[in-house]
């Protein structure tokens, strides 16, 4: 029987949660790197034993850890994240220009085919690549030096490159998203980038349909439809069916369309999940009820999923990298909260249970299905 491994990054360490394919009983190991902020832990699709972890601290800076045995042992690898050439300047909160300054890695995205190739999304926004298992990192500078970069600005969490999606059908195409700049696509392996924000409207910027400046919170793709992307923006849930040529809002009947994560069912490309949050100033669920919303129609029509989730007095948030789906049938879906709970559903979201309740605030959740 297959087994499932959840990789959980928290404010105070990383945890690994494992279960067999029934996803009924879970074993919790960790903390790994206790006391450190673990923004992201992710596994290589090409070699599930190869894991990468982003370890950082306000005191000691950024480290990258690598495991070659599924998380039993770890070794620090390279942490030299240097901007290629002049850092340049971006817009700061107060409207002044501010030099790009490296702070941390938010997201690690291993190649689908080569366990030694991994991409890293940084703050201040930049994309790095390693081809030697994380020992050495090179920036793909065409993104940060895109002519629009003086108009990029930090969201409340910092000016982070938080989403990296590698197109499964075209190895030269990838998508990234930056808060608050927007979404970008490359068709030439990072040599050049195109802002793909047409159709986005953001009332928080002076020109609400500007080319850049949008606070995109997360993108998601189903691998069978690489031209279709779903987006959870600061406000609004959107989709594109032409690889970002134009987006249209699909918030439909959601109680609020503010939120952070978005995910697509592993076997149903039109089944999408979001976690609505009250507002940009109230980062907790409406009415103290934690509800995942599912659309089986690619957006517009949404249903609340509540069974097993707290429906009173719940004031946690679910961050952008903290929801994921497994590839088993039925599809499993998992998310972690800022209150330290990790919830799982082994039936596509119909019923939920807490896998663990008292971790530090969860920053990220990834899942691996092991043979």
């Amino acid at each position: 029987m297959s087994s499932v491994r959840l990789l959980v990054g928290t404010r105070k360490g990383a945890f690994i949660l494992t279960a067999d394919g029934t996803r009924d009983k879970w074993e919790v190991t960790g903390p790994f790197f206790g006391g450190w902020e673990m923004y992201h832990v992710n596994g290589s699709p090409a070699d599930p034993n190869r894991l990468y972890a982003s370890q950082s601290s306000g005191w000691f800076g950024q480290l990258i850890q690598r495991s070659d045995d599924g998380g039993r042992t770890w070794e620090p690898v390279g942490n030299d994240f240097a901007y290629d050439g002049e850092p340049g300047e971006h817009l700061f909160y107060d409207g002044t220009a501010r030099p790009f300054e490296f702070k941390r890695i938010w997201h690690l995205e291993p190649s689908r085919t080569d366990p030694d190739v991994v991409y890293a999304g940084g703050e201040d926004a930049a994309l790095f690549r390693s081809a030697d298992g994380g020992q050495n990192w090179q920036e793909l500078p065409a993104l940060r030096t895109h002519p629009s970069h003086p108009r990029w600005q930090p969201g409340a969490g910092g000016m982070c490159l938080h989403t990296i999606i590698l197109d499964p059908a075209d190895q030269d195409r990838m998508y990234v998203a930056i808060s608050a700049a927007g979404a970008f696509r490359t068709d030439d392996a990072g040599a050049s980038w195109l802002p793909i924000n047409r159709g986005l409207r953001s009332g928080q910027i002076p020109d609400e349909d500007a080319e850049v400046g949008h606070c995109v919170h997360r993108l998601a793709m189903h691998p069978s439809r690489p031209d279709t992307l779903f987006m959870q923006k600061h406000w609004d849930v959107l989709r594109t069916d032409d690889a970002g040529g134009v987006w249209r809002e699909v918030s439909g009947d959601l109680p609020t369309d503010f939120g952070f994560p978005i995910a697509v069912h592993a076997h149903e490309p039109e089944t999408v999940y979001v976690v609505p949050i009250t507002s940009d100033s109230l980062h907790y669920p409406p009415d103290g009820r934690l509800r995942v919303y599912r659309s089986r129609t690619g957006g517009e029509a949404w249903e609340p999923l509540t069974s097993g989730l707290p429906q009173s007095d719940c004031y946690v948030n679910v961050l952008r990298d903290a929801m994921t789906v497994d590839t088993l049938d039925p599809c499993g879906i998992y998310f972690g909260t800022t209150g330290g709970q990790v919830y799982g559903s082994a039936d596509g979201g119909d019923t939920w249970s807490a896998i663990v309740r008292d971790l530090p605030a969860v920053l990220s959740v990834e899942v691996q299905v092991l043979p």
Partner: protein
Amino acid sequence: MIRVVLPAHLKNLARVGSEVRLEVGQPVTQRVVLDALEERYPVLRGTIRDRRTGQRRAFIRFYACEEDLSNEPPDSPLPQRVVQGEEPFLVIGAMAGG
């Protein structure tokens, strides 16, 4: 022989015990000690000083002989008792947050 004490997280990272002992050349300065420390434990590169500028990270402090040496020029000689190995050079994570 210079004695260096690291904060707990960096001890774990470098997999060292309570104290690191380093042989360094003269003159003994912050820069010389930290260069030797990073040479022996490359994993510490970037955790105490910025890799590009060599500047002390904002929330790191350097103490020795009951003095705060954090803002001393990196090429100033360290106190004689540190040079003699009688007192350790302390790398401290500043009190901030949790």
